[in-house]
């Protein structure tokens, strides 16, 4: 009985660890998607290619998140800094740390 209980506990712990390692929860990515569609699509486009409805007005154009070069280096910091402080014509956005995290998770899930 004790062995069964121990094995059950071990399996449960292992499963939890595996789920955590699998990445952000689906709900978190979904929240990030909602924020991205509300705040980012206008310039960066729904497909992240920097071709949103307003994109043609900007020079340089909005960043293409599907470009392989975008995902090099400390991307999390790069995205968070742009959202928090703006960059060039891109305005700073009023998002909490949690919301920024959710948007980054969505962008990785969708565009990387």
């Amino acid at each position: 009985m004790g062995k069964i209980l121990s094995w059950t506990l071990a399996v449960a712990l292992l499963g939890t660890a595996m789920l955590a390692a699998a990445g952000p929860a689906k709900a978190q990515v979904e929240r990030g998607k909602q924020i991205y569609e509300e705040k980012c699509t206008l310039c960066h486009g729904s497909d992240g290619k920097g071709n949103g409805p307003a994109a043609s007005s900007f020079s340089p154009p909005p960043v293409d998140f599907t470009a392989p070069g975008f995902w090099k280096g400390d991307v999390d910091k790069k995205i968070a800094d742009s959202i928090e402080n703006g960059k060039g014509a891109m305005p700073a956005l009023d998002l909490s740390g949690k919301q920024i995290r959710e948007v980054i998770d969505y962008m990785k899930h969708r565009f990387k």
Partner: protein
Amino acid sequence: MLRRLVRSLFLVLGSLGLVILWPSGRAQGVPSFGRQTGLECSACHTVWPELTPYGRTFKMTGYVMSKSQKIYEFPPPLSGLFQASFTHTDKSQPSGAAPFNSSANDNVNLPQQASVYYAGKILDKLGAFMQFTYDGVSNAFIVDMTDIRFADTTKLGGKPLVYGASFNNAPTMQDVWNTGPVWGFPFASASVAPTPAAAAVIDGTLNQQVGGLGLYGYWNNLLYAEVNFYRTAANGYPQFLSGGTHVTSLVNGVAPYWRLFIQHQWKNQSLMVGHYGMVTQIFPEGETRGNSDTFTDIAFDAQYQYITRKHRFSVASTWIHEIQNLGASYALGNTGNRSNNLDTFRINFNYSYRCPYGTFGGNFAYFNTFGSRDEVLYAPDPVSGSRNGLPNSDGFIIQGIYVPPKWEQAKIVVQYTIYNSFNGARTNYDGFGRNAGDNNTLYILTWLMF
């Protein structure tokens, strides 16, 4: 008839606006712009109405950027404004001298102003910023600032070119920087306090007195050029643009306006250096035909911005040189000279800090107007006159602002204007014993957009 029409339009739009806007609790700048883009005030403004680079692009592209991607916006892009103010001058004005029959001092204007805006996308590439105002000081309904635009983008030399047309009723209303007469600091000021007698024609004299149609182009986020042609709104097709306003500056023929600037953005900073000007022929006061005076305005301006999420700093400056050919007025005995010059210089420094408790900011400005002596044009008169015939006035403006957290459409302004000189002198400037410092003005304004 036109005043009744403007009043009716105001009431209808206002009622419709209340129905549309009442459930909305989001902080959204000129709120209809915010609803349209899905962005906060701070995306387009440092502290409104000063624009960020994104806000300038939004205006340049015709107010049509929208998250919905529909050809038209529904509900229509309506917003409202309510202002209340308190004005105190260091010395009361003599009985009857205060503008609009106001009290001699300590005037509470509730409202100072109430407005309804139609601001946003009309149809696809056509947008507008239209303001209809009840002026609580003059007790009048007016068609206020109006800018209707068509804009599109193409490529020139492989680089983006934004081009468009603007139909507006105030020279520099269409400008995207905060250096010029319409959108320059202090953005709002007391209308019941004494103000210097002299101002260049391009410096607000023609607001809501003219209608103008022009073309512009903005290339590669670098170079901008515009030409606009204004005519009087006292009659003809632009007449609705002056609805409710008594046209006192009657423009003869067409007045060309031009604007050039070059700008550069890098990381969180932007810098602009520019030039604008206008040539206007105006009939002497009371005349509607015959000879007219000619006013040539040549101006230069510059603005620098540094913007992060918490810190926003900017410097803006303009200098206007006006050449006045006053042959028509001189012949009627309205001026002492056939020609005069008038120069206006302004510079302001602006800083704001955003934190969980709201946005706190301050502004410091210096202004100086100086020009030719003309003892007929600038004659002695209690409060508003000049003892020595000079238009010279200079001084400082110190201002504090507060915008509440999570409610960016409200703003409280405390402004103090200090005059070193007023209408030509520091002491006894009007010839009736009033000093420049007597006109120092404390102005407290609460400003709510919805």
